[in-house]
């Protein structure tokens, strides 16, 4: 039967009540020192309470958290299972949006190991079928993309990002993958305009980069000028989405397009 333990946190100057389970008391009994520590998270710090085999408190210590815990007052938004069918390599994910104090998660089954990457505006936790070095690199790129996007969040563009990352997770991401993902995250809010003269010079190049792309070329780029990226990417499969965004970034590098915030 769990035991109720009352103690005091010197950091937040508050009386704390914790429930100590039988498993904790049992751990203390079998511990070489006869005591175990249990952790209670208080926002930006953690209180470690040392418990003995009788369930009594034997001391406390306060530790500062490197990244403050979410208040936990909001329940996570659970993504229905049918939306996870599009993810073939991802078994589950959790997105923690710090500014919005929002957690969005979806799991195909019960999981106990997740890889976590922390950013300034968001943390992402991911459970994946197979762990490779590229998984960590993609997680980092994803989190940096959120920071680049300035913390603006829309679920539909996040979902498209998840599908794209899931599809490419076992290939090494290019150096600009965070820029590409941030374009996708912001795709409802951004459009581009074309510098006609720069495009003309580019089109005259005998060996321009159009030859590397199937889903888009300079003609289509001009045709979609002024539309939001979201409109351009609608009804495209994941490989086409990657190609189009990669091409747009390449054109931006060459000053052929200028990206701006679309109004409305």
């Amino acid at each position, binding site marked *: 039967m769990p035991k109720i333990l009352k103690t005091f946190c010197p950091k937040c100057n508050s009386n704390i009540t914790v429930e100590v389970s039988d498993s904790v008391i049992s751990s203390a009994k079998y511990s070489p020192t006869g005591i175990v520590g249990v952790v209670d998270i208080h926002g930006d710090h953690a209180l470690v309470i040392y418990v003995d085999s009788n369930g009594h408190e034997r001391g406390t210590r306060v530790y500062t958290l490197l990244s403050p815990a979410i208040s936990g007052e909001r329940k996570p938004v659970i993504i229905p299972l049918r939306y996870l069918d599009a993810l073939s390599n991802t078994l589950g994910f959790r997105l923690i949006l710090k500014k919005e104090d929002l957690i969005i998660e979806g799991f195909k089954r019960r999981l106990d190991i997740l890889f976590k990457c922390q950013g300034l505006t968001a943390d992402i936790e991911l459970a994946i079928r197979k762990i490779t070095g590229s998984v960590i690199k993609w997680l980092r790129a994803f989190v940096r993309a959120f920071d680049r996007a300035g913390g603006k969040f829309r679920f539909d563009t996040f979902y498209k990002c998840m599908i794209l990352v899931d599809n490419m997770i076992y290939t090494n991401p290019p150096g600009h993958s965070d820029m590409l993902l941030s374009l996708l995250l912001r795709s409802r809010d951004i459009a581009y305009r074309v510098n006609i003269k720069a495009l003309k010079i580019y089109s005259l190049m005998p*060996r321009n980069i159009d030859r590397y792309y199937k889903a888009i070329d300079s003609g289509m780029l001009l045709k979609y000028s002024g539309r939001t990226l979201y409109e351009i990417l609608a009804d495209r499969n994941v490989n086409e989405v990657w190609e189009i965004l990669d091409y747009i970034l390449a054109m931006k590098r060459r000053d052929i397009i200028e990206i701006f915030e679309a109004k409305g």
Partner: protein
Amino acid sequence: MAPPIIGKSTFSRIISYEAILWYLLPKLKKICLNLPAGRKDRIFSLINNLSTRKPPRVSVNPHDPEIRFLHESLNLILDDIEYVAGNLSPSKWGYLRNLFEGIVQSESYRMLIRDIISKFKGIKDGVILELNPSSGRGLIDACKILGRRGLGVDQDPLFTEIGKEYAYRENIDNVEFICTDLSKISDHLSAPVALLLVTSPINWFIDQRYLLSKIVSIAEVNCSIVGLLPFRERDEEVNIFEPYINLVSENRLMTVLSSENQLSYEGFSKITFQKIGSLYLFTAVKR
């Protein structure tokens, strides 16, 4: 006399591009009227010097895609002369960047690099370093041919990104592109430089005395250098590239002799120059 570095067909292609510069000279003179006084006077005096000479007789194929690209791009850029001449910093070169990328990505430039690099298969151990590689085509090809690691140092952040883009696209993992000032290159060198390339057209816009001083400071003993730059044949004889270069930067070209003397003075040997129209392909080795 040293054997020529580049082959006859590469030579003829490069010569034919120069004809376009001569052809556009009257348009440049007319358009320069819109420039600020100091720049206008300087370019006018260069053009007047050139008009005392006859342009070289070169056959040009107007249907050649590379010729067409160069001609029409230069035409478009000259039409926008006030924008081009007013924006001097590399980050604002805008569509000049597309012109340079087109030149460096062209088959002619690749032929030039292949001809050059074939002469350097016996160089000492070390990396290939290129100054201002533009889109990096020359460096990527050179590293593929010689099987060496490469480092491209560009002062333009966008060109650095474009170089990385090509390297990623072609699965090249032995070439790195960094953006830094030429004076800080040594901070990024972790291996000796075996070959220093200064062939990209971006280098034509950099003050030649400054550029040569950087080449001298970077090249260690037994380092080979290869450069493609416009020089004056004689001090009083303007180079056809000069009025165009002076649209963007105030760059008075050195003479071939003074640059050769400077290299020799700074400890370089086996110095060769091959004239390709108004451009000079030079090689040297640091003693």
